């Protein structure tokens, strides 16, 4: 177990370094004047340009720049935005909101995706199963912003069950609707993944043996079919946490949630490249940590790999 986790940890380090290097390289080091890239189409005043050069060590060789940038990440010093606010402070303000939103979405897709997927898988080929399958295809096919507007319009404006937009403090109840929208596509994937795994496991030899032992149907399904089907689903959910935080950019825009996504979007519109890079880097850290968590869960769920 220890060796497995150590190996996964060692594998994640190059992923983290590679991803940050990739971003850094793309944004700061491709041909063309780096400050022009940072300042974008709007251009900067000479003073801002000078401070940028100083802040991002642009006069240093590329490797030094990158290493200093890494050091900044680990010391929570991510620089400032154009208005002079430290990016760390901005993130500290908006990060909890997005984390809450993403976790709520994750909980929604996990609970409903697994439950409905299990039920559909056990009733393979029946009416319920076919309906659920078509529904899941629809959810995947319709772009998230269309679904978002639709749900905002129906639930928020017509039915008035919830506020169409979210206030500054982003309470739990206010976030329910955005979380549903955010988790909807992944919910369809979780559902399909669970269904496939359940169908495969339900016909496995050990499930037949479990039935032959005299176990009740209920116990066979929960202890043997469901437990074994969780392995691929958990892997997906872990990787999805990072994707949800990033994907919040659309949902937060629709519901006007003041979170990481909205901050990132504003930075994109303002052409604030340093802010964009910092936020994306933080999201990569989340992704990497979520993956580590998945590995822990994975090892717990599947004893075969603990000793691998």
């Amino acid at each position: 177990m220890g060796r497995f986790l150590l190996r996964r940890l060692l594998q994640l380090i190059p992923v983290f370094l590679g991803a940050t290097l990739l971003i850094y390289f793309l944004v700061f080091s491709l041909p063309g004047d780096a400050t022009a890239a940072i300042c974008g189409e709007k251009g900067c005043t000479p003073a801002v340009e000078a401070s940028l050069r100083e802040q991002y060590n642009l006069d240093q060789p590329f490797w030094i720049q990158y290493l200093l940038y890494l050091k900044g990440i680990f010391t929570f010093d991510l620089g400032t935005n154009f208005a002079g606010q430290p990016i760390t402070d901005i993130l500290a303000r908006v990060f909890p909101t997005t984390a809450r939103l993403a976790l709520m979405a994750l909980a929604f897709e996990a609970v409903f995706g697994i439950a409905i997927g299990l039920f559909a898988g056990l009733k393979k080929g029946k009416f319920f199963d076919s309906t659920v399958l078509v529904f899941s295809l629809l959810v995947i096919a319709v772009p998230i912003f269309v679904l978002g507007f639709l749900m905002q319009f129906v639930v928020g404006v017509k039915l008035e069950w919830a506020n169409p937009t979210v206030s500054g403090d982003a309470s739990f109840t206010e976030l329910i609707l955005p979380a549903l929208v955010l988790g909807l596509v992944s919910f369809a994937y979780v559902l399909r993944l669970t269904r496939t795994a359940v169908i495969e496991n339900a016909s496995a030899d050990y499930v037949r043996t479990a039935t032959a032992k005299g176990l009740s149907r209920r116990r066979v399904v929960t202890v043997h079919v469901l437990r074994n089907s969780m392995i691929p689903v958990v892997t997906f959910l872990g990787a999805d946490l990072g994707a949800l935080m990033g994907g919040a950019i659309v949902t937060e825009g629709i519901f006007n949630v003041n979170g990481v996504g909205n901050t990132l979007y504003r930075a994109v519109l303002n052409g604030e490249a340093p802010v964009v890079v910092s936020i994306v880097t933080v999201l990569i850290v989340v992704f990497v940590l979520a993956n580590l968590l998945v590995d822990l869960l994975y090892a717990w769920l599947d004893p075969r790999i603990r000793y691998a």
Partner: protein
Amino acid sequence: MNGETMNNETFDEASRPRPLLELRDLAISFKTGNGEVEAVRQANLTILPGETVAIVGESGSGKSTTALAAIGLLPANGRIAGGTLLFDGEDITNASEKRRVELRGSSIGMVPQDPMSNLNPVWQIGFQVKETLAANGLPHQKKDVAKVLSEAGLPRAEERANQYPHEFSGGMRQRALIAIGLSCRPRLLIADEPTSALDVTVQRQILDHLDTMTDDLGTAVLLITHDLGLAAERAHKVVVMYKGQVVEAGPAVELMTNPRHPYTQRLVASAPSLASRRIESAKERGKESAEELTADRPVATDNVIEVRDLVKNYKIRGGVGKATEFRAVDEVSLSIKRGTTTAVVGESGSGKSTVARLVLGLEDASEGSILFDGVDITTLSRKEMFKFRRRVQPIFQDPFGSLDPMYNIFRTIEEPLRVHKIGDGKVREQKVRALLEQVALPASMMQRFPNELSGGQRQRVAIARALALDPEVVICDEAVSALDVLVQAQVLNLLADLQSELGLSYLFITHDLAVVRQIADHVCVMEKGKLVETGSTDEVFENPQTQYTRSLLDAIPGAGLMLPPEVA
């Protein structure tokens, strides 16, 4: 064991107990894409309490389906289409799911076929025993679980209960499954090919143990097997199934000695055993048989292949940065005389398949030499190796894996010719036709794809492909192990005919000693990478020199039964 009680004359019909399981005209059908297909029809079967009944049949005969129907575990698309199923007098043909759950485990237990896939990989062995006991209302403390496991012959049961299936060997897993099957003291145990995935010596131990346990507990056993010898040896009564029907049923010994249905007769005649002799080619079969069997075979003197002190080490990853060496083949020396068959026999992990891969040049030897006509192939350059490959060709075990499913039969057999740039299109087609004829397949088969062929036909195609380059040596790696007995006999005959026709030399890798007796001139016995015994087939079989060889020979199912009547 109960020989003295068999007295037919004074038998009182009234004292016969009520049958524990009775199948009357049972019919089972499956819903498929092409409508309903009948898998079993008019099956009749009676098991008395404490009795062992074996169903014997080839794959697709309906033997497993019949057994699964008895415990109510037919696949979702299967159903009992007719007849009745009685358990201890109770009609359970259409029993409710609730009643079935009650019966399973406590009244009818099951030991499944494949120990690798029948234990849930994510739960500890102890847990899987415990839940069985709990579901059937039996005490399920730690000590109860340990007791059940140790009864099935699992050493250090209390410790082992905490381990997961992947930490167990195949034999251990099968013991765990037997423990589960018998844990609730069922009155009937369904054992579906309980040992076919295991090595012969392990198979013997496990069957012996199963016998002892069921004898002690008075459990009736329904044994499903493809092996007639095993059935005859382990059962009171044998039922032979063929294409979904019971064709013959009766006392085990009588069925062996006096088979009456044509299918059973063929089965008995084809069953490989110690008593069988080496298969002669068709040509030789026509000759006067007064001459001694092997005496008049052309005495070949030169060795086409000579393996000297062959060693193969594999690196196994240990801890971080560390690597330990595992010696798969340990100083093996053997030779193949031109035009003869040398068999390499051993159990799983003996290194026999590694030897085959080394001789084929698919892997590099760590030490030692492989001389082919006096030339050491371990030192060949890439180009020389390419030429060498023409002279040695393989045939593999799994007929479903050895042909590329995307290639039709013509392309499959033509590929070696194309790779070695032999002839033009026309010449190659002629050659493919000739090869198909040699392996007794119609030329019309050329356009077929492997998925349309049966196992035996695929194996013939694999043989034709191996022969395309006119090799001198053919390496048969378990080439007939996956085939049904009758098909196996046909393929072995074909191999013998080709040998005498083409002067081929075979290196025959197998775990099955009975097959060795039928095909080999020389035998090499391997154990854990080492060669433990070598000699002519007759020497090794009649006068084995090592304990290991003796135990292998002894473990062949039905070994004793097949001896001529005067010794029995």
